[in-house]
């Protein structure tokens, strides 16, 4: 009924096959299949600024799931991991990732902050993580969509590229937070504005299905969180290189 945890037969069969493969392969791999990572939407401004100026400033705008707590949290969270992965892949480019993480803010709150962000940080690319807070508050999907539209349009008018990132896959709270309508909305907004969507929900679910991570695990241990964020950071780096057509610049050895 509620479109939750969407799957296609193809994806399911792939997941099943890959589960077997993953069981045989090394234990900590977190490969992301291309169909989950690469789409038809380009990051044109990123291509330009990287090729002409050899620099790239990325702003990560998001809520709680874009950060990790504790003293070793910030360097382990995915924004920092993205910077490390991208810098390694693009050694000739000055990569800077800044984070503007505010807990408990809805998409509407975040959208209203985009103008200020453009002035303060002058990013080339904004990675906008959203959806979890709105789903928990059950914000009207139309309002959620309007907020995303507003934020993305503000950024695009300023000539800045955007990547939307949806929620985490959280199997334990899966029956409690109605993610699906919000994930659908983000997909639609990404399609309409022709921006890439980093489908964190499907990717983490894929990792769970193939056994890369046990996302059901309980406990205060940080290892799982650090590894997942590292993989997310590397996944976004691959997405950026693909969507901005930077394969020519990329350091082959590190791919």
């Amino acid at each position, binding site marked *: *009924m*509620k*479109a*939750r*945890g*969407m*799957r*296609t*037969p*193809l*994806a*399911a069969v792939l*997941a*099943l096959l890959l*589960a077997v493969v993953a069981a045989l392969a090394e234990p900590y791999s977190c490969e992301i299949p*291309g169909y989950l990572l*690469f*789409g*038809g939407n380009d990051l044109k401004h990123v291509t330009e600024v990287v090729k002409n100026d050899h620099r790239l400033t990325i702003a990560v705008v998001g*809520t*709680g*799931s874009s950060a*990790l*707590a504790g003293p070793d949290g910030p360097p382990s969270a995915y924004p920092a991991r993205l910077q490390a992965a991208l810098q390694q892949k693009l050694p000739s480019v000055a990569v800077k990732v800044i984070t503007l993480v505010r807990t408990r803010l809805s998409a509407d709150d975040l959208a209203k902050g985009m103008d200020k962000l453009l002035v303060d940080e002058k990013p080339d690319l904004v990675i906008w993580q959203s959806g*979890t*807070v709105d789903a*928990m*508050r*059950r*914000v*009207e999907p139309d309002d959620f*969509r309007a907020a995303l539209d507003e934020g993305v349009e503000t950024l695009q008018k300023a000539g800045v590229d955007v990547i939307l990132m949806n929620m*985490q*896959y959280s*199997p*334990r*709270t899966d*029956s*409690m*937070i*109605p993610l699906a*309508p919000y994930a*659908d909305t983000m*997909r*639609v907004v990404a*399609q*309409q504005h022709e921006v890439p*969507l980093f489908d964190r929900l499907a990717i983490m*679910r894929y990792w*769970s299905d193939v*056994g890369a991570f046990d*996302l*059901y*695990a*309980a*406990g*205060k*241990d940080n290892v799982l*969180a650090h590894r997942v*964020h590292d993989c997310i950071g590397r996944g976004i780096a691959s997405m950026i290189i693909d969507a901005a057509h930077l394969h020519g610049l990329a350091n082959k050895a590190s791919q």
Partner: protein
Amino acid sequence: MPQVPLRPSSIWAIPVPHERPPDMHAPVAPVVTSGRDLRLDLFRGIALWLIFLDHIPSNLVAWVTIRNYGFSDATEIFVFVSGYTAAFVYGKEMRERGFVVAGARILRRAWQIYVAHVFLFAIYLAEISYVAVSFENPLYAEEMNILDFLKQPDVTIIQALLLKFKPSNMDVLPLYIVLLLLFPPILWLLQYRATLALGASVLLYVLTWEFNWNLPSYPSGHWYFNPFAWQLLFVFGAWCALGGARRLSGVLRSRVTLAIAVAYLAFAFVISLSWYLPGMTQYIPSAIEVIYPIDKVNLDVLRFAHFLALAVVTVQFVPRDWPFLTTRWAWPLVVCGQHSLEIFCLGVFLSFAAHFAMVEVSGSIWLQFIVSALGILVMVAAAGVIAWYKRLEGRSPGSRPRKMPDADLAGGEA
């Protein structure tokens, strides 16, 4: 007044002829189509199974369910069939015993569903409270905020009793309650001015879209299934039951209709594939984007049309007297469809239990298959037991063919 058995004398002791010659129809107002249409039970059974599978979070088995292949899903089937059977059962009652008696029974039914909803909410509270104390994972610090409402049970529980706070997956029964509360006058109008009633329903649907009517939710937003929009499908089901289906039969059997329906289903299939395979998006013309968003809250026209297309194809290929319907292979689905409220509630409970098992034991694919299969087995067994109880108590119309359909039973069907 001819007595038309509402269901075969026993689901085990089949077959019973379902077709009656037309002259056996009551001469009163619009006539109910003859006999009980087992296809309805079958498809409601299918809907119940699919709803169960879809409600288990993170369940890979749910990729078999129809929502992944088009715009509509099991909810549409469930609401339509519920409208159809409610009109079938209570319409007969209203013609024979009057508006007050039938109306009172419908309201009693709404009360039973309310009680069932509150029962499910208690189970939900138990599950979420358990998760709250047992689960700490730094990766999911943000998601744990969902448990905030446990800090103010006074507000939460009262809002739940008012049907304003509805945890996820618990939206269908409140919709059903509101639909039944509104049903007596609609049913009355359907009996005497069927077209007018359907027209009123369409008008309400259009006005709802125009003026954004909906009921409020707690802590924010509106009902996930907007009753003012979804009533269209319920009333349409009721209208079909009270003679509308026969009036449409010419259209339904036409080759042109079938061709349009098949083409539309194919279109919806391709579009829905593009949701999962980003690589496919480039092959879909951007003009298609005008169809978005496909609004489930307000029963988008595309969803309604998708359901109609499915129904057209079904009617073409599944005849009313299809022998399969009375075989033992169809029985597990039919018996579930015949006790839909009980099995629906059980399904919601079982989906909680299945999720719990996946969290506590393992989320492996094998366990997902096992809990899915086990859940369906339990649903079928429970439906079998309920059918047995009802026969035991002589409440099955088959066992006393001249008895009025009992309210519980009628409800069980409606």
